[in-house]
């Protein structure tokens, strides 16, 4: 069961970190757009 649990956990951690990376990138792009609007 432990080995069965590891696979979805690893998949989920990968997805989570990827979403955080995308979120950070979007925040940066939004910031750039705001500054360019000023």
């Amino acid at each position, binding site marked *: 069961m432990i080995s069965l649990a590891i696979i979805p956990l690893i998949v989920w951690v990968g997805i*989570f970190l990827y*979403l955080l990376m995308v979120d950070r990138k979007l925040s940066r792009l939004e910031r750039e*757009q705001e500054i360019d609007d000023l």
Partner: protein
Amino acid sequence: MQSTESTQSTKPGRAVPRSRASSQAVAIPGLGWKIWAGVWMAIGIAAAFLWVGPVVGFTMGGHGAKAFFFHMPNAWLATITYVTGAWYAVRYLRTPRTAGLEFRSERNEDDMKSAVSMELGLLFSFLAAVTGSLFAKNEWHAYWVWTDPRMVSILVIMLIFAAYLVLRGAIEEPEKRARLTAAYALVAAIPGLFLIWVLPRIVDTLHSGPNNAVVGGGLGGNVRLVLYAFIMPAFIGLFVWLFQLRLRLMRLEARAQNPYNAPNGSLR
């Protein structure tokens, strides 16, 4: 003195040049609840596999029921996206278009939210179909059974979502695109919700057994606790996060394509 702005020329698809802010750290909005959702999901996955015992009546020594933890939330979220897609479509169609102005941002928001809902609906219905197929292989020794109404209905649900995206991509003019896709999202909710909620209850399908186990309390307290206290809230957090990400990206794209649309809807 060296210019503080990058001398990089504007890249294709980028309406504004890179500014100095790109090198500064930026905060992720709502980081707290996003981390909570991530941790909650991890706890739920660990509990599902390490704490919840076998469920009587399922294959793999009763452990085949663990597919519920990932199949049910996806199916529920596919339903929620039908509702939210139709809701924002109604809001868009009800907002009157003021003659003489560009595509206003306030109505833009409802159109974009409806589109994001339908995109996520395709994603979650696909995941529900995949997890359901894996469960079906364990329980009934076939990934797909064409004679089963439930399995065929999830395919139709995916096609309904996909058709929305095709329609959206086929129309270039923004106002026309928003109006037609809003009408589609509204109308599509009716067969979509029928296929999800009504059809499985009026015909006998392979899905009836597991469905009765869920409704009739046959899954056991541990399964329900992990599913409703950990997995479902984490999936809802994931849905909100994905919704927010996609919406923010759509806003950026809309602004980049039409820089004359200021955030408050006025013309510059």
